[in-house]
């Protein structure tokens, strides 16, 4: 067990290393850099040289990578090239904002998805299933930029109940932020809930058709006891990994939604820093997003491992 965790963490670090290498090489081989973007048409001669010198771009790429990696290990992501401030300071509030958005979507979306998925599966092909399934499939197929725009149009412009775009400084307090996030959360939760509800539905249906459920019925187990004791634990195990991926996707910043609502989260920062050729920020973001994915997947695997008696005793026997 402990060995497994250590092994997975070790592999996680290797993943992070490879991710950083790829983003570094990627931004390096693309034409143009921070200075040419910043100086635009004056990007030649002495001005360019001075800019390079100022930003430290005159030293060879591999040396820059090594010194950068050295600092990252100590928790310092360096200076943002465009904003001219420490990246740690840029990232902090953005991470917080993304977390707020993601947590709200998770708190609303996941229980809702589970409930809807279970209802549709238990009343399969009956009215509740047909109604909910039609809605979820509809919600799944509308791209988020359309649903987000429609929400702004109806709720913010026609009804004027809530602000349409989020115009706040990046470091607002939680309660100031709250009314601003309602629309983005709805836009995200819609698509996420629909996907997960479909997944839970098919998983529950599959378990309901299994021999051991037939056996439980023939044993005389009352219906709801059967659902909670025999069906759900087995049906929801495979859902853990999907939920984890969804959470990781949310924490990583929902780029499109954040851009539509002008929300100061990680997703928008990604777009901004890429268009500004802000290599250190891009690097830092890549590392952070990758570590979110790696750690959430690790947690999901450990949870599956703990909850699935089959895997648990397999490990012990070894």
């Amino acid at each position, binding site marked *: 067990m402990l060995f497994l965790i250590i092994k997975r963490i070790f592999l996680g670090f290797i993943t992070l290393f490879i991710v950083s290498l790829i983003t570094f090489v990627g931004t390096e081989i693309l034409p143009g850099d921070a200075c040419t973007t910043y100086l635009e048409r004056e990007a030649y001669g002495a001005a360019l040289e001075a800019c390079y010198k100022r930003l430290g771009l005159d030293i060879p790429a591999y040396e820059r990578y090594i010194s950068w990696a050295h600092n990252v290990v100590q928790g310092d992501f360096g200076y943002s090239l465009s904003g001219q401030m420490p990246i740690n300071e840029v990232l902090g509030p953005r991470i917080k904002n993304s977390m707020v958005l993601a947590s709200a979507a998770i708190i609303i979306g996941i229980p809702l998805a589970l409930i809807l998925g279970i209802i549709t599966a238990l009343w399969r092909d009956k009215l509740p299933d047909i109604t909910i399934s039609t809605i979820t499939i509809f919600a799944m197929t509308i791209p988020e930029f359309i649903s987000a725009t429609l929400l702004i149009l109806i709720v913010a412009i026609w009804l004027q109940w809530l602000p349409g775009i989020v115009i706040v400084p990046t470091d607002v307090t939680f309660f100031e932020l709250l009314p601003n996030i309602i629309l983005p959360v709805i836009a995200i939760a819609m698509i996420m809930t629909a996907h997960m509800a479909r997944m839970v539905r098919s998983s529950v249906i599959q378990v309901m058709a299994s021999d*051991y459920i037939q056996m439980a019925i023939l*044993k*005389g187990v009352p219906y709801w006891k059967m659902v909670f004791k025999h069906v759900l634990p087995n049906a929801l195990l495979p859902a853990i990994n999907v939920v984890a991926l969804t959470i990781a996707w949310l924490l990583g910043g929902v780029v499109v939604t954040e851009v539509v609502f002008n929300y100061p989260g990680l997703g928008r920062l990604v777009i901004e820093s890429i268009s500004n050729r802000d290599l250190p920020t891009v690097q830092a973001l890549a590392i952070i997003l990758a570590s979110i994915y790696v750690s959430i997947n690790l947690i999901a695997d450990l949870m599956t491992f703990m909850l699935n008696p089959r895997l648990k005793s397999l490990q012990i026997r070894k």
Partner: protein
Amino acid sequence: MENIIQSIKNLSIGFKSKKGDEISILRNVTTNIKKGETVGIVGESGSGKSTLALAMMGYVKQGLYTIKGECLYKSSNLLKMKSRDLEKIRGRKIAMIPQNAGQSLTPNLKIGYQIDEALSLHTSLNKTERNNKISELLNKVRLPSPDTMAFRYPHELSGGQQQRVAVAMALAGRPDLLLLDEPTTGLDVTTQAHVLELLRSIAKDTETSMVYVSHDLGAIAQVSDRIIVMYAGEIVLEGPARSILKNPIHPYTFGLLKSIPKLSLAGLPGSMPGSQPQPGSIGIGCSFYDRCSIAEEKCKKNSPNLEYVSELKTNVRCFNYKNLEKFNYKISSSNQKINVKKEINQILNLTDVSISYAKQKLLDQIFNKISDTNPTVKDINIEVKKGETIALVGESGSGKSTILKSIAGLLRTKDGKIKFKNDRELSSNLKNRDSNDLRAIQLIFQNPDESLNPNHTVEQILSQPLKLYFGLNGEKLRKNIIELLQKVRLGEFYMTRYPRQLSGGEKQRVAVARAFAAKPDIILCDEVTSALDVSVQAAVLNLLQNLKEDLGTTYIFVSHDLAVVRAISDRVAVLYQGRLCEIGPSKNVYQFPSHPYTEVLLGAVLEPDPDIKPKLVAEDIVEEKPPEKGCSFQGRCPKILGDQCKNETPPWQIGDNGNAIRCHIPLKDLKKQQLS
């Protein structure tokens, strides 16, 4: 009438086809189950026997519905009951023991919990009483260490143990009626015999009525007082077990009994032509008309009713059963004798072959070698002669399929040599074999559903080896495919069909044709008939035998079924835990003296004869690993001598019959013990 537990009246269950037609799976079934009686329901897949058993619990599978009739338990119709009331009957009055206990136990709940659930639902015992009861039940079904067993999960148990847990669970509510749906199918022969023995003793002790559903007449014969034979959703024969088995007066039952290979008889069983009609395609006449050897004109137009034959106390659904009795000369004499051709040419030679499943250590991976002191399969020496059929027999885990995989090149050997034709060594790595070697050794798998690509037509399936090995195309390819289909007795029109449009037997024929397409020297048959119904099994065995006689192919035949092996093979090798126990000409292996393990296997074979009872000489313990030293069978051997067996590898002894036995006990003594 008061001792009738359940009565089924004119029951028809079916489904609506896409065109809206009503299609029956069960047709007009009427029968009674008496108190304390064990009724065997036998039939091939698709005969409606499981549907009938489930209906006895008031359960109708999704997609099916009751067309007419009723299923009465104490004068209330289970099929019309509300689910709340059914919950009180299921498990308490009528309990089910499922076919596949491994899949029928909920994987996330401990054994103890699942039994406790049944107890708390159906008895008024309190927690401590229930805990005691759980141990008592686990003890009753003879599970080892019942106290710790309750805390284990289903997957931690062997197949036989899971089946015992299912029995314990069913007994928890003290039901009046136990329904058993193929409870021993899929278990090893020895385990099967033990579970049956357990069921029989439970039926006797508790006076529970049992309905035993199976395709295996051997198992049915061991437990039943009365037998019901089902065909195409109808009861075709019903009566006391003894008269059904000794005097099968319905032509279908007669054919079914004839198609079962028996230990006492060498040679192939007789096969019945054709296959059971699909539901919906049954016409107005007798449903068995197409396959019947005594059918007359009237059978085509009229469907016979059940007729009572008083001297046999049997109901039979046949106009002509009196004519059958003329055919009813001793069943044995219709069996064909195999003419054993003596060929001296050796075609394949395994010398000291060992195979390991152990995970390679990093260092070994680098040096590309396998170090494992106790490999799964060890010291296999088998010489295969051209044109013979050699069978590898053993329970699951005996390494028989492992050896087959290594011969096919699918699994690397650890040590030893596999020599093919004129002592040329075959690489155990598939990549190092040339295309001619690959062609020369072909495999037929157990389950044709999984071994045939569902998205290819029969034509595409058969054209692949022809294109690959012989570069055929166009008209020539087509001609060859038709020829192959003729060889396996399938018509040209099968070319455009997909596997899902074929019956189980037809699929296996296609798989046989695909193996023969490569014109192989050796065909490896991995349990090729165990997924098939008995009548189909007989047909496939006959087909394999005929092809072999025509083409001179060599078969290496892996099976757990000793009777099947007896029918088809020239020589038999008995394996236990990946080590050879006995090898010799098949008629001698089936005679004493035998290796103690062979004796155990032979004793556990179930024959469709109420007079032949299985002899259970050893426990059906599952050993996970072969012992490090000494005899491989030491853990279960009823004749174990002591330290000698535990420490020294037993020597090969050659018996006077020409079979070699690996045992410390002198053959003279073995023979004396076994004959007494």
